[in-house]
C-alpha cells in the first residue's frame, strides 16, 4: 500500500482505483467475444480520466465491470483494486456481484451516470423518490432527512424549483433537466469515484456545455474522481486531466490531455483526431478517415488489433507481435511498434526492425 502511494506522480496524491489486466469475455452462440483484452489504468484522487473509443471498443464494459453490473454472460478476469471504506483495499472482481460488500460500494462509493437519462429513470416513480433510494439505502433511514439531502443535491446540480421538481415524474422533465437529476442521484451519497458513461451524448450542444460545467464545479466541491467515458474527443479535451484511448478492447495510448492532443502518437489516435474537423481551420479537400471498420472481437488474429487499418504498419512485426503500452516520454504511454521503435513483443520475441 505504501508503495502505491509513492508511485503516484507529483500533484495528485493517492490512487483511488487501479485496474490491472482486466479481460472480459462474452459467450455468444458463435463463440467467445474477447471484448476487453488486458486493460490497465489507475485513477488518482480528484482526477478525471477520459476513456475514449468508438462503439464496440469495450469502454462501457470496462466501466460496468468496476461496478459489477455487467451481464451474467460477461466473464471478467484480472484485478480492479479499490480502496473501499469499511472493506479496505479489495479486488472488486472477487466480490459476489449480488453480495452485500459490492452493494456497499455500488451507488455509495462508486456511482455511475448513464448515457440515456430517459432510460435510466423509472417512469413509475417521482424523481425525488428515485434520488432518495440511494440515500435511504446508504446514509439514513429517516425519510425526512433523506428528502432534505436530495433537495440539497438537486439544487447543487442546478435544478431550479427543486421542491416542486422533487415530486414530479421523469416525463415532466426535459432531457437536460433529467440528466441533472441523474447526476444528483449519482452524487447524493458523495462518491469517491463517479463513472460517467457518455453523459452528454444524447444532449444538445448548449445543454451539453451546461452539464459539463456543472460536472466540473461539482468535482471541485465533492473532490471526487471521474472516469469519463465518451467517443467525443472535443468533450474530453475540456474535461479530462488524462486521456486513455481504447481500441478493440485495449488501451492503445494514454497521456495527459495536453500531451495527447499536442502530440498524438498512436496511428489510431492520430486518425481519430484527424477525422474531426476543427472549426476555423482551412477546409481540407478530404477529411482524414481511417479506412475499414472495427473488426469483430472474435477469433482475432495475432499481432496488433489495429494492423488492418493502420497506415504505419510494419509487416512482419505488427502482425506477428502484440504491442504493449510502452513509455514514450512525458508520461505518455503508447502501444505501437511504429511509435516506440523497439518491438518488445509479448513473450520475449525478438523482431528485427
Amino acid at each position: 500500500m505504501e508503495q502505491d502511494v509513492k508511485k503516484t506522480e507529483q500533484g495528485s496524491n493517492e490512487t483511488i482505483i487501479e485496474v490491472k489486466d482486466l479481460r472480459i469475455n462474452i459467450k455468444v452462440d458463435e463463440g467467445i467475444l474477447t471484448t476487453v483484452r488486458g486493460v490497465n489504468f489507475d485513477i488518482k484522487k480528484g482526477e478525471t480520466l477520459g476513456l475514449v473509443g468508438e462503439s464496440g471498443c469495450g469502454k462501457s464494459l470496462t466501466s460496468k465491470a468496476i461496478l459489477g453490473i455487467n451481464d451474467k454472460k460477461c466473464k471478467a478476469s484480472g484485478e480492479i483494486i479499490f480502496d473501499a471504506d469499511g472493506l479496505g483495499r479489495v479486488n472488486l472482481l472477487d466480490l459476489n456481484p449480488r453480495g452485500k460488500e459490492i452493494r456497499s460500494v455500488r451507488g455509495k462509493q462508486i456511482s455511475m451516470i448513464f448515457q440515456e437519462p430517459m432510460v435510466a429513470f423509472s417512469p413509475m416513480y417521482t424523481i425525488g423518490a428515485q434520488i432518495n433510494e440511494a440515500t435511504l439505502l446508504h446514509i439514513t433511514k429517516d425519510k425526512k432527512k433523506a428528502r432534505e439531502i436530495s433537495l440539497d443535491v438537486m439544487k447543487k446540480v442546478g435544478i431550479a424549483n427543486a421542491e416542486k421538481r422533487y415530486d414530479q415524474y421523469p416525463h415532466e422533465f426535459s432531457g437536460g433537466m433529467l440528466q441533472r437529476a441523474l447526476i444528483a442521484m449519482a452524487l447524493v451519497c458523495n462518491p469517491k469515484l463517479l463513472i460517467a458513461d457518455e453523459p452528454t451524448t444524447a444532449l444538445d450542444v448548449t445543454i451539453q456545455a451546461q452539464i459539463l460545467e456543472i460536472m466540473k464545479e461539482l468535482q471541485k466541491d465533492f473532490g471526487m474522481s471521474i472516469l469519463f467515458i465518451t467517443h467525443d474527443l472535443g468533450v474530453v479535451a475540456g474535461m479530462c486531466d488524462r486521456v486513455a484511448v481504447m481500441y478493440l478492447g485495449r488501451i492503445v495510448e494514454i497521456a495527459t490531455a495536453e500531451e495527447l492532443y499536442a502530440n498524438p502518437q498512436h496511428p489510431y489516435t492520430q486518425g481519430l483526431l484527424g477525422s474531426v474537423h476543427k472549426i476555423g481551420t482551412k477546409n481540407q479537400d478530404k477529411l482524414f478517415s481511417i479506412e475499414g471498420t472495427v473488426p469483430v472481437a472474435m477469433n482475432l488474429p495475432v499481432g496488433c488489433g489495429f494492423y488492418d487499418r493502420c497506415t504505419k504498419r510494419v509487416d512482419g512485426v505488427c502482425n506477428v507481435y502484440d504491442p504493449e503500452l510502452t513509455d514514450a516520454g512525458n508520461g505518455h504511454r503508447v502501444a505501437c511498434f511504429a511509435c516506440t521503435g523497439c518491438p518488445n513483443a509479448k513473450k520475449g520475441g525478438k523482431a528485427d526492425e
Partner: protein
Amino acid sequence: MSKGDKILDVQNIKMDFHSKGVTVHAVGDVSFSVGEGETMGIVGESGCGKTTLGRCIVRAYEPTAGAVMYKSSEGDLIDFLKIDKKTMKAYRKEIQMIFQDPYSSLDPRMTVLDIIKEPLLANFPKMPKEEMERKVMDIAAKVGLNTTYLKRYPHAFSGGQRQRIGIARALVLNPRVIVCDECVSALDVSIQAQVINLLHELQKEFNLTFLFISHDLSVVEYISDRVGVMYLGKMVEFAPTKKLFSHPMHPYTESLLSAVPVADPTKQMERIPLQGEIPNPANPPKGCYFHTRCRYCTEKCSQEAPEYKKMEPEHFVACHRAEELKLKGFDYDD
C-alpha cells in the same frame, strides 16, 4: 453567392401540428434559397424544427402555408407543394432524402439489393430487370459497398455500411437535390469522416445539391457553403459558412458556437452559457422567441418580434440589436 442557378426557393414555409386542442408551430415562416450544386446547412437544437423543415421540403409533411419553388431538370419552375400527386411523382425522383438512423430506415426483411432497387421499381416499373440490377450494382459500387454482398439483409452490415445503403437508395434515381437529415450523427467519428468524404465526392461527380440538416456544428461547418440557424421554428440567422462562424450576428448563434467542444485542451473557448431551456413551441414567449435566454435582452426584445432582415450582403439576421452587438465567433487561421 450560391454556386449555380437557384434550384430550390423555399418561401415562407409554415408547419403547424395540432394535437389535443394545442397547436404547435413547428416551423414558422422560413424562407431561403439554395443554388444548384450547393450545400446548405441547417443547424439548431433538438425541437427547433429543422427536421420538420426538411420533411416539408420533400413534402413528407403537407406544410400549412408557404411554397417550395423548384426548378426542374427541364428548366420549368414549379411549386413543389401545389402540384397534384401524379405530377409530383415525376419530380419526386429529383428530390431525395437520406435519413438519420441507419438502423430503422432500412427494412430488415428486404435484401440490400431490393432496398436499393425499390425506388426504381416504383418509378420505372417497365425498366428491364437486367438494367435495373446493373444500375443498382453501379450505384452500390459507387458508394463503396461490396457488390458481392448485396443479396444479404441489412442486419449483416455495420452502421457505416448501412448508411451507405441509404445513400445508394437515395442516389439510384439520379436526384438533383438530397435532403440529408442528421445523416452522419449516428456514426462513429472515423466512419463519419468516411461518409462525409463520400458525400463530398458524389456531390462533385453528380453536381448534387444538399440540404444538410444537423446539430453537429463542426460537420456543418466542414460541408456547407451556407448555413442557417434555427431556433424554435424560426430561422434566426443565415449566412455563408465562414461569415456565420467567424462573425455571428445573432446572440443565439454566438452561444451555440461557444458551446461546441473543441478538440484541443489549450484552445478552450469561453463558454457563453444559455440560461434555461428551449421554450415550449406550443406556447412560445412574446416578442423575440429567444429573449428568455438571451443575455443581450432589452425591453423591446420582450415585446416586439424582430424582423428577419438582410444586415450585410448574404447575411440575414432576426435580432433587434444585430447592428450594435459585437459578437464572438471562431478565429479563422487564414
